[in-house]
């Protein structure tokens, strides 16, 4: 069961249209290290965590990733808002427009559609938690690349915030991983 609160986890207020930036940020929506991958990865792995604390942590982090997915969607949506056909064509988004109009879609920055192959699940908590730690580091690195590319402070601020969340989640997963190792639970 999930509930929705009608607010973003952290505010996003982008006023300047920037289709090129939208094309890069989309990878955190539907790319390999994006928020959809993260949410589904953790929410799917939680069933086989060896104790209730692990089940809780994967549920809570997976749930937060859904809020991040909404923030990333908001960024892309606001960056594309009001774009004309000519602007879309100039930014190389005419193919997107032909297929999907102005709808968002789960792709990486190259346009490859999201695939469940981005998600690991091998039924072994050491392997699964190691993957999650790597996933958080990869997402942190991607957010840093995006921050490097961004010029508008209204875009940079939520990216910096989301990057810090990856740092926190990595540490939460690491604590759980260490405890499982120490307690020989796995």
């Amino acid at each position, binding site marked *: 069961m999930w509930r*929705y609160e009608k607010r973003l986890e952290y505010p996003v207020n982008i006023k300047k249209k920037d289709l090129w930036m939208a094309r890069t940020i989309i990878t955190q929506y539907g790319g390999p290290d994006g928020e959809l991958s993260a949410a589904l990865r953790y929410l799917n792995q939680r069933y086989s965590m060896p104790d209730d*604390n692990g089940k809780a*942590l994967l549920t*809570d982090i997976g749930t937060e990733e859904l809020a991040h997915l909404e923030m990333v969607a*908001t960024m892309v949506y606001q960056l594309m808002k009001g774009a004309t056909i000519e602007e879309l064509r100039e930014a190389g988004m005419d193919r997107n427009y032909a297929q999907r109009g102005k709808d968002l879609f789960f792709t990486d920055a190259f346009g490859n559609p999201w695939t469940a192959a981005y998600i690991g699940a091998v039924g072994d908590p050491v392997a699964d938690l190691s993957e999650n730690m790597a996933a958080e580091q990869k997402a942190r690195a991607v957010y840093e690349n995006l*921050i490097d590319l961004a010029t508008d402070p209204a875009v940079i601020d939520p990216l910096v915030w989301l990057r810090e*969340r990856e740092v926190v989640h990595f540490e939460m997963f690491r604590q759980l991983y260490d405890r499982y190792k120490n307690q020989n639970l796995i």
Partner: protein
Amino acid sequence: MNYRDKNIPMGPYTKPKPQPTPQMPTGTLNLFPPDEGFARGTIFRGLYEPYKKQTPLRPVPTTERERLLHDVNKYYFALHELRMYLDNFPNDQEAINIFTAFQRNYTKAKNEYEMRYEALDIEAPNLDSAPWNWTVGRWPWEGEM
């Protein structure tokens, strides 16, 4: 990286020493105040790792509506952070005390916001008369906090 001061021993399941009344916002957990933690993206001082020279823009609410929503955001965020921490360290009574205090702040801010402005979820007290309040106000992705 540590959540706590280095001089306080801790293990995942060691029973914490009895603590005096929690000193919000910074007890032995070494937390940022909720405002600052929300702006930085973590309430745990030990986990804050800025990228290059990026400093967080502090969201500055300009209207009463924004101020109340900012309170809802920051207290929920602090609760969520503590919840994850407590998943790993469930015997930390000090963290639970801070959690309980933030719960009260969150509920108060959320109720006040919903009474005066828009419904945030299905529990909202202002979903009792026409026009249906769930459809009132901007959706979150439209901007303006």
